């Protein structure tokens, strides 16, 4: 455990990960009012976009309410102090999307993919470097490389060798426990001179303490969402996280009282944008989802199809778990449940 001297950087992913919770329907109105409020709070970074990031609006995953460009331009116009970031998965996004994002004034480019395939980020990272924009590497579904051989260190090394100075460990499945973070973050910090961040999901109710543990062992950036509003069981809940940090004397730039106020207002902000708000919660299906190490973003798709096929949602997750799908393979949920129904 290290003594945390530096302020923890708070990165708010509500308008990106939260898009999973509402089928990517976050619209102009919501982005505008949310960004306007958050800009006053001292939150360091806001991420905007489709749940699967840049260029991911599609029939297979779900269509965004507005184009990437429009969303980014609106956020840009509201954010004066808070930086604007995007999530980009090569395979969904292409270099052209990055070009547009640069033109929209995005500050931070978070290039990520399922951790096992991290070398597919190569050309996007090289593009960011050439264009002199801040580029982070994101290890999504990090549990896939958390093994006895410490495969995650290999993946971090790959990014480090490309000149990446900041990486984010994403617990996309919500499967990690605090001890895992202690292990991962301290091992990375021991081996590399690199800034590390953590992105949690709350399927096992441990997002807060995973995030705190990450900070205690050297993570400098934490992804959070207002009221935990994110995919599946939700992300690290911002107001709780900030309050606990304060209690154990770890500093941030954020005015907590302002965050409490936004948390209270948030359901209204969505409703004004004609989007139905639902508190994130780990339902049995979400517990099952994490247990199988599945991508949190699957939840809304599984809900939709298990309802249509009249299947039990837990059974649905079990079937998908047995096929070992990873983030991006949303298209195959239909086929797996179709076959399950036929049985």
């Amino acid at each position, binding site marked *: 455990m290290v003594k945390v001297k530096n302020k923890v950087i708070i990165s708010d992913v509500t308008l990106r990960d939260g898009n999973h919770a509402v089928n990517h329907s976050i619209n102009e109105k919501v982005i505008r009012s949310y960004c306007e409020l958050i800009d006053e709070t001292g939150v360091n970074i806001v991420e905007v976009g489709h749940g699967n990031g840049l260029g991911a609006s*599609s*029939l*297979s995953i779900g269509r965004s309410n507005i184009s990437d460009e429009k969303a980014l331009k609106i956020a840009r116009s509201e954010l004066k102090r808070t930086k604007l970031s995007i999530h980009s998965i*090569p*395979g*969904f996004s*292409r*270099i052209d999307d990055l070009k547009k994002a640069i033109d929209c004034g995005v500050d931070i480019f978070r290039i990520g993919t*399922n951790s*096992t*395939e991290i*070398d*597919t980020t*190569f*050309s*996007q990272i090289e593009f960011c470097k050439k264009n002199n924009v801040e580029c982070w590497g994101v290890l999504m579904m990090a549990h*896939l490389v958390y093994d006895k051989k410490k495969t995650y260190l290999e993946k971090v090394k790959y990014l480090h060798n490309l000149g990446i100075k900041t990486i984010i460990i994403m617990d996309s499945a919500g499967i990690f426990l605090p001890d895992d973070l202690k292990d991962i973050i301290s091992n990375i910090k021991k081996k590399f001179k690199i800034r590390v961040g953590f992105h949690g999901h709350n399927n096992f109710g441990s997002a807060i303490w995973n995030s705190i543990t990450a900070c205690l062992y050297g993570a400098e950036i934490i992804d959070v969402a207002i009221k935990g509003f994110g995919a599946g069981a939700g992300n690290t809940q911002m107001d709780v996280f900030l309050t606990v940090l304060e209690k154990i004397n770890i500093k941030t730039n954020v005015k907590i009282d302002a965050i409490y106020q936004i948390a209270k207002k948030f359901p209204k902000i969505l409703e004004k944008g004609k989007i139905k708000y639902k508190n994130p919660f780990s339902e049995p299906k979400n517990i099952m989802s994490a247990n199988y190490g599945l991508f949190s973003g699957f939840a809304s798709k599984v809900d939709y*199809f298990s309802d*249509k096929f009249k299947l039990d949602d837990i059974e649905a997750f079990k079937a998908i778990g047995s*096929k*070992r*799908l*990873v983030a*991006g*393979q949303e*298209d*195959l949920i*239909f*086929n797996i449940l*179709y076959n399950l129904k036929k049985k």
Partner: protein
Amino acid sequence: MNNAIIIGTGKIGIDLYIKLKRNNIFDKIFIFNTNKLSEGAKYCKKKKFLYYDTGVNGVKKNLNSCNVIFDCTSANSNMIITKKLKNLIRNKFYINLTPSTFGKYVVPYFNQQTIPNEVNLITCGGQTSIPIISLFKKILRGNLVYSELVSSISSKSAGIATRNNINEYIINTENAIKQLTKIKKTKVIINLNPSVPPVNMMNSLFFELKKSIKPKKYINLKKELKKINSKIKFYMPDYNATLFKGFDERVLRVTVRVIGQGDYLPTYAGNLDIITSSAVHLAKQINQNYFDGKSKK
């Protein structure tokens, strides 16, 4: 002499070598790269392929006896190599299996009478989906407004070139779909799945319609799709496309499972097979049309 050259000893180059050999289309097949220590080079030596590590210079020296050159390198290398070979390949067939933009898009499924000298075989996703998208466009016409292709391939079947060329892959596939099927709006997505044991290549096609279609049309699509299956089976034995009614009446889904023949990589690598099998099929057409099928039978 009717010989062929393969450039590149990655997964595609080697798989293609094995398939060409088995099909007995050419007298001799030479395979080149520039790194004799690579995994592919070691395999070539072990299997006693006509392998040389002399790169483009070696290719130049052997061009005389060859009619067909298969480029199985990467998008970047393809650009460099074709520049170096420029005038020397003018009267040859240069088949590009990388996702670079070099060459005219060809899907050998559509038996063409004249074959361009510079052929672009697009991508595995392109070879898998274009026959289907083209069929749907023909039947649905203006009612079809958008198509989307999502390909999932196993991590193990994706070599370095594939991983570095994700961007080229998407752009080349989308451009070819638009050009060959005349559809205006299309999107291509690719996923790599790391599961062990590896998963089969799966493709989902989504077709967005202006308005829902009558059952009769649906049955017709289903029937025509079956024809595609049996026609592709001629060169790709385990290709299976199935049409599904989604829950949205304005969206049709087609799932295509592509299982390989297990030549270089095991059968999960259908993505490898669909493009190498297309190349073999094309080589047969070239032989038939231009060399009277003259190579040894």
